[in-house]
C-alpha cells in the first residue's frame, strides 16, 4: 500500500470532481435543502397565526404584540393593502389602529375596532388572534383585571420543527456527498474503462478504493458541518461536533464504496440508492415525529451516526454521552470495509477476465 499513489488518485478525483454534476449537486444541496425545508416546510408544520397591523398612532397594542411569542406580525402602512392581504389569506387577521385609538379607549369613547379575519383562516387562529387583541384592548383601558390567571406547565417543551428537521438535512448531506459521490465515481470509472486503465499502472485496487472513500469522507464531513452551521447547530463544542461528523462521514462513504464496487453500471447504482433509500432515510423521520416509538430507529444503520450528531450538535451534549453509538458506527464501518474488500476482489477478477 502506497500513500503517495493513493494521494495521487485522490488529488485527481478532487481536481476532476467539480466537472461532475453529482459533485456539484452535493455542494449545492445543503443550501437548497436548508432553504426549502426551513423556509417552506418549517412554516408548514408549525404554522403560527399571522396578524397584520396598520398602526397610524403608535399604539401600545402593536408594541405588546411585537413582544409576543407565537404570533407572526406584519406591519403595513395602508389599510386597503391590509384588507387585500387578509382576503388573499396572506394574513389570518388584520387590525387597523387609527390615530388616537389608545386615547379614545382610555377616555371611554368606545372607538370601533377595525379587525378583519380571513375567510380561509382556521377557527383556532381566529380565536387566538381575536381574544388576544381584545385582552390587549382591555389592558389599554386600565384598571385591575377581575381575575388572576396562573399557567402551570407539565413536562418539557418540545423542540421546534426547524430543529427537528436538522437530522434530515444532515442525512441528505451525508448520503449525497458521502454515498453518492464516491459510489458513482467508482461506477463511472468502471463504465468509462479508466478504472481498468489505472489498475494496469502500479496503483492497486485497495489504494483506488481508499482514495474514493477518503473523497467521500472529506466531502461529507465538510458538507455535513456546513449544513449544521447553516442551521445554527454548531455551538461551542464544535470539536466534538466535527468528530461525530467525521465518524458519520466514514460510515456513509464506506456505504458508497460498497455500492460503487457492487454496481455494474450507473443504473444499478441508482437503483441501489433508490431501493435502499427509505431504509437509510428512516431514522431521520423519528426526530421529526418524536411521539413514534424511538427504539425502532435503532434498527436502521444510519441511526448510529445520526443520533450522535443529534445529541452532540443539536442537544449540545458531550461526545462522552454517545461513545456507545460511535463504537457501533465504527464497527459497522469496519464490517462494510471488509465487505467492500471482498466485492473488490470479485470485481478485480471480473475485470481480469474481460
Amino acid at each position, binding site marked *: 500500500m502506497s500513500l503517495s499513489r493513493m494521494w495521487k488518485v485522490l488529488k485527481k478525483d478532487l481536481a476532476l470532481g467539480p466537472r461532475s454534476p453529482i459533485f456539484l449537486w452535493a455542494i449545492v444541496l445543503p443550501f437548497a435543502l436548508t432553504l426549502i425545508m426551513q423556509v417552506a416546510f418549517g412554516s408548514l408544520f408549525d404554522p403560527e397565526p399571522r396578524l397584520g397591523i396598520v398602526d397610524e398612532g403608535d399604539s401600545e397594542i402593536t408594541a405588546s404584540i411585537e413582544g409576543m411569542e407565537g404570533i407572526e406580525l406584519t406591519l403595513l402602512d395602508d389599510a386597503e393593502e391590509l384588507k387585500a392581504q387578509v382576503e388573499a389569506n*396572506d394574513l389570518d387577521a388584520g387590525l387597523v389602529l387609527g390615530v388616537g385609538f389608545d386615547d379614545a379607549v382610555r377616555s371611554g369613547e368606545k372607538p370601533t375596532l377595525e379587525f378583519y379575519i380571513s375567510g380561509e383562516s382556521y377557527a383556532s387562529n381566529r380565536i387566538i388572534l381575536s381574544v388576544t387583541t381584545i*385582552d390587549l384592548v382591555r389592558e389599554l383601558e386600565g384598571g385591575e383585571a*377581575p381575575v388572576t390567571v396562573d399557567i402551570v406547565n407539565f413536562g418539557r417543551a418540545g423542540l421546534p420543527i426547524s430543529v427537528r428537521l436538522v437530522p434530515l438535512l444532515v442525512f441528505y448531506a451525508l448520503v449525497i456527498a458521502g454515498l453518492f459521490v464516491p459510489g458513482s465515481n467508482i461506477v463511472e470509472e468502471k463504465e468509462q474503462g479508466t478504472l481498468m486503465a489505472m489498475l494496469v499502472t502500479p496503483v492497486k485496487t485497495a489504494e483506488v478504493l481508499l482514495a474514493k472513500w477518503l473523497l467521500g469522507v472529506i466531502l461529507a464531513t465538510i458538507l455535513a458541518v456546513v449544513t449544521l452551521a447553516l442551521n445554527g447547530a454548531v455551538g461551542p463544542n464544535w470539536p466534538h461536533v466535527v468528530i461525530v461528523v467525521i465518524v458519520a462521514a466514514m460510515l456513509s462513504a464506506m456505504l458508497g464504496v460498497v455500492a460503487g464496487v457492487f454496481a455494474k453500471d450507473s443504473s444499478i447504482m441508482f437503483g441501489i440508492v433508490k431501493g435502499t433509500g427509505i431504509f437509510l432515510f428512516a431514522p431521520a423521520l423519528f426526530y421529526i415525529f418524536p411521539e413514534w416509538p424511538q427504539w425502532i430507529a435503532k434498527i436502521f444503520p444510519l441511526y448510529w451516526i445520526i443520533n450522535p450528531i443529534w445529541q452532540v450538535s443539536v442537544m449540545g451534549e458531550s461526545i462522552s454521552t454517545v461513545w456507545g453509538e460511535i463504537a457501533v458506527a465504527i464497527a459497522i464501518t469496519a464490517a462494510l470495509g471488509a465487505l467492500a474488500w471482498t466485492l473488490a476482489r470479485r470485481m478485480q477478477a471480473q475485470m481480469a477476465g474481460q
Partner: protein
Amino acid sequence: MSRPISRPAIIGALLKKELTAYSRDFIYLGLTLVVLIMFPVLFHILPDSVDETITIAVSPPVEVLVADARDAFIAMGATEEQLAQLDELDLTEAEEGLLLVEFEDKEQMARVVEGTLEAWETEAGDLVLSDTEAGDEKPKDAERVNLDIGIAFPASFIADVAASKSGVSVTVYSDAHVPAEIQGAMRSFVRELAYQFAGRELPVDFPEEEAVVLGQDRLGDQVTLRERMRPMILFMILLMETFSMASLISTEVLQRTVTAVLVTPAKVGDFLAAKTIFGTFMSMSQALIMLALIGGLTAQNWSLVLVVLLMGAIMFTGVALFVGSAGKDFMGQLFYAMLFTVPLLIPTFSVLLPGSVASWVRVLPSYPIVDVLVGSMVYGATWAESWGSLAYAAVWLVVLYVAGLMALKRKVETL
C-alpha cells in the same frame, strides 16, 4: 421496387420501438410502478378533514359553576331575566372552534393534561378515565380524547367576579409543548370571561360580522390536506415522466441508435413526432390512471382538468426532449434533468402553503398548470375563470416544446 410507406405507418413503427425500449428500462419502469402505487397509498393515508378546533378541559362543569352562581345572584337580588341568562350560559357560544370537555374533579383533569391519566369518550358521549399505569384497560368502543389544556375555575368563580371580590384566581394547566400563542389565548379567554361576568363592557365597538370576514368564509369547510395534495400528485406524475423520457432519448443519442433509425425511410420529423406522441401518451396515461385511483374529476371540472393535464404532458415532453438531447450518461442525464425539473417543482409547494403565491413563482412555466389544476379541483374554478392561466400556460408550452424540439433536431442532424 418497394411500396412507399406512409408517414403514420413509420411513426407507428417508431412508437412500437419506443414502447419496447421503455419496457426494457427496468429502473424507470420500476420507478413508474412504485410511484403509481405509492402516491395513491400516501393520498389515502392523508387526513380528509381539518381539525380547526382547540379542545380544552374545564373543571368544575359549567352546570356546577352556574348552580353556584345562581344562589349568589339570587342573594344579590338578580332579576328573573338575569337568572335566565345565567342558566343558558355556554362558555363557547361566542367562540366557534372551542370544544369543552368537562371534569368534576380538577385533580383528575390536571392528571389528564399531564398525561398520567387517559380520557376516553364513549359512543354515548360519556367521558371515561383510565389509568393505564395502574393496569386499567382501554374502554371498549371509545375514542381517546387528547387534552393539552385544562382550566380549573373555583366553584364560586362567576359569583366572585360578579361581586367584584378580590383575589379570584384561575389555574390553566397546560402541556409544555402547547404553543405560547395558545397558552396566551387561554389566559386572555379566561380574563375576558371574568370581565363579562363582572359586567364590564368592552371598551370598543365591533363592526358587523359580514364586514369583518373577508373572502369566502370557509369556517368548518376548510380545504383538507388530501384535497390540496390531489393536484400536486397529478403534477408530480407529469413531471416524473420527464426523467424516463429524457433517459430514453439520451440513451438513443449516446448510443447513436437514432442514426440507424434515420437510414430507414424514417425522417427526422417522424422521429421527433414519435418522441412527442410517446412522451405525451406516457405522461397522460399515467395521470389518467392516477386520477382513477385518487379521484377528483367532477361533472363541472372534467374537461378543464383533462385539457390542462394534456398541456402539462406536452410541456414536460418538451422539457424531456431538451434534457435528453444533451446525450449525457445515466448519472449525468439524471442530474441534468433535476436541474430543469426542480425549479418547475417550486409552484407545487404553493398548494401546501396558505396565502397568495410570490410573484417570482408566478413567472415559472409550471405555475399556470398548477394554478388551473388547483383552481378547478379544489376551488371549483370554471373555464371562464381559468382562461388567463390557460393562455399563459399555452405560451410556455409553445416556448418549451419548440426549444426541446429544436435542440433534439439539431442534435440528431449533427450525429
